[in-house]
């Protein structure tokens, strides 16, 4: 089965090369499925203010301002509700070999039973995409953030 898949992938690669050769297209190929994160010296700092859309596993979307600050190698995160009060707090880390990924724990300051984990991906344009889970569930939510300052 594995050999079949490998053969299929080889056919795919060959087909794509053939297609490119026939088309004589000189444009650079696009990479649509980034899956492995590598450090980049051009990655902007993740510190800043963001406007985020947080989607839970039930597909409910909530908008939050998010502020990420750093204290050395430790990051603090604060999501605000519509009244300007902290809705969630977080503490995060980056790995020294990966400067575009932030892992963070978060918690509800008003309900100690609500806490979870989130992994942010800092994109080259400075926006964030993330996936998260509350500790008590086995489903993930997502979050996208655009930088506001």
């Amino acid at each position, binding site marked *: 089965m594995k050999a079949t898949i490998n053969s299929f992938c080889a056919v795919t690669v060959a087909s*794509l090369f053939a297609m490119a050769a026939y088309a004589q297209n000189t444009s650079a190929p696009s990479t*649509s499925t980034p899956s492995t994160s590598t450090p980049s010296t051009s990655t902007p700092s993740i510190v800043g203010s963001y406007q985020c859309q947080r989607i839970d596993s039930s597909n409910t979307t909530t908008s939050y301002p998010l502020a990420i600050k750093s204290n050395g190698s430790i990051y603090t995160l604060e999501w605000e509700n519509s009244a300007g009060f902290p809705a969630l707090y977080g503490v995060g880390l980056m790995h020294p070999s990966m400067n575009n990924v932030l892992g963070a724990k978060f918690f509800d300051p008003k309900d100690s039973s609500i806490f979870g984990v*989130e992994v*942010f991906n800092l994109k080259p344009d400075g926006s964030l995409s993330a996936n998260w889970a509350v500790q008590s569930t*086995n489903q993930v939510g997502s979050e996208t953030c655009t930088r506001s300052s």
Partner: protein
Amino acid sequence: MNTIHKITLAAALGMIGLLACTASIAGAPDISGTYKCSGVDSGSPSNPNFNESIVIKKNGDVFNIQAIHSGDLVPYDLGTAVFNKDVNNAFAYVYWGVKDNSTFGIELMTIKPDGSFDGVYLDSSETKPSTETCTKSS
């Protein structure tokens, strides 16, 4: 077969194959297993080196984690891990103490090409990150 037909056939094969290959690499890798870990804890300067096992089990979209001290049978920390959908060589997990409810930390693991982990973590009682490496044992 004229050139246009060849282009069409190649494009069709390419797109079908691309979808198939993409599907085979999409999503988080299954990191389930038992790992032997060793680390250096910045919060224990007099005795910073430690060894532990972590047991990882897939549970829906997340992974459940148990951290067990060497020589113990029951876990002292539990955790929940997630991947980012765009990053499959790192994951983070929140952990909390089974008996010690003051333990509440975050660990970010990178996954090396050989499948071992290289992580940094921060416990709520500490002000500097600590480090840990893990190798799969079963």
